């Protein structure tokens, strides 16, 4: 299973991972639109936290025993047996926020516009997630683990 390794010693807290994530999720693929104009302003699945010189980029870690999946009231979150990844089906999500309380990383977003959650899906379908590809300091690595 592939996951994103967070190399905090290289993270400068620039938040470009958040920017690339939103861009990737936007309908237009254009920055200004994604941030200011699209009806469905996409949320970033990554969140940068900073404290003094230390910064980390937090997102879904695809836990092996995922508390969010067990908490899901709608059957929207599942762990895919083949890939080992936590997958989410939008139609099944009722926006009950149970998974938000369950996630030990605080990695699940509340998408109030849609009344559903938003989360990192490792840019499913892409060879390398947008945040990893865009990180200017190689603080994120996409590795097999």
């Amino acid at each position, binding site marked *: 299973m592939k996951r994103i390794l967070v190399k905090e010693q290289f993270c400068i807290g620039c938040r470009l991972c958040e920017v690339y994530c939103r861009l990737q999720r936007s309908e237009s693929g254009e920055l200004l639109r994604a941030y200011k104009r699209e009806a469905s302003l996409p949320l970033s699945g990554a969140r940068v936290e900073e404290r003094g010189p230390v910064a980390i980029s*937090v997102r879904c870690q695809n836990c*092996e*025993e*995922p508390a969010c999946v*067990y908490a899901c009231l709608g059957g929207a979150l599942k762990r895919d047996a083949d890939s080992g990844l936590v997958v989410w089906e939008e139609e099944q999500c*009722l926006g009950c926020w149970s998974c938000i*309380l*369950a996630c*030990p990383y605080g990695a699940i977003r509340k998408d109030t516009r849609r009344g559903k959650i938003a989360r990192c899906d490792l840019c499913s379908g892409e060879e390398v997630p947008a945040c990893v590809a865009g990180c200017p300091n190689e603080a994120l690595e996409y590795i097999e683990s």
Partner: protein
Amino acid sequence: MKKVEYLIIGNSAGGIAAAEAIRQVDKSGEIAIISDEPCAAYCRARIAEHLAYGRSVDDLLFRPADFYEKNGIQAILGRRAEWIDAGAHRVQIDDGTGISWGKLLLATGGRPIVPEMEGVNRKGVFTFTTFDDARAIARYIEKAERAVVIGGGLIGTSAIEALVKRGLKVTVVEMKERILNTILDEEASALEAEAMKQAGVDIITGATIFGINGPSTGAEVVSSVTLDSGREIPCQLVVVAIGVTPRLELAAAAGIKVNRGIAVDRRMATSCPDVYACGDVAEAHDFVYQGPRLTPVWPNAYLGGRVAGFNMAGVAADYPGGTAINSMKYFGVDITSAGITVPPDDSYRVLRRRQNGSYRRVVVKVGCVVGMVFAGDIEKSGIVFKLMKERVDVSQFVETLVADDFGLICLPEDLWRSQLVAPDKVLK
């Protein structure tokens, strides 16, 4: 007589979780699930969506329609288990047949409490815990303009929101001083009450219903309720939502140990060999109270069912414990809460912060978080919940838990580092 390796009574959160865990480790052992509800497992919390928008049960299923077939599970639906002979490993079903089993799981959930009162059997009086309940209300609703919901807990609130969406004028009558009083503190429950009032709901607290009345003697339908104060509220529809009680009768009659719920150990095993229990019917470990307790919420039912399933299939697993957890967005107010939200005495420390429409409250006892409420900005509540679950000593950084810039990085370095390097395991 039919014989299966695993028999599960109750086709909902707990039952499905157990079946999935069993199939994860035993690909071929025969599994049967009995339910007295006629449909495939659905999302119980979504019955309001049928009432509000007419969504069919097929749109609210918890697992895809082919779940049972794909997993080789026999679903015996619309049938009730009548009694258990635990010694003979046998269950009697209401169609006259019997099933013998190797391992049995009781995931029978709860049933709504309906108080004895004048007029409670009238047409127009409903409970709200099953899809059939929602359908019955939806069919009756044309006849109603005003509704009274008895009980301002989570289920009552869900019903109120759906009725408001259907355009009814709704009054809620809550016995205690405030709505959602068992799961929220005063401040959060006031936020919810305010939103409810904005939506046009009348909230009457500190009152109970004395009786449900008809338009004339002999008439069967509802036309009003009378409060204990003598006040009369006209209505054509009443929803009774004062709580649920575990469906213990099968277990009790079979001689399985019951307290307020079926007693289970950390493996979710009952007092009877080969019989397990989980979910709303079971009294399982509560990590806040450090003892067995009813915690009737979906995530705990699922996790308990999963643990039961593994153990039934011979793979040892321990229930890490649950506690009262709730999350909601009724009337547009986003809330997560867990554990003790209102301390019973002053040996607890309460931290609170209200900022930009968001509210956070953390309750601490001897260095450990034992309760929490987040409203508005709830996204990081899970980080605090994990500290609570693992009884982490937060003395050194407790103030940061309610700070605006709270995050994983506010935890001691070894904690966030170990979390990011070794992703979480709920079951160790």
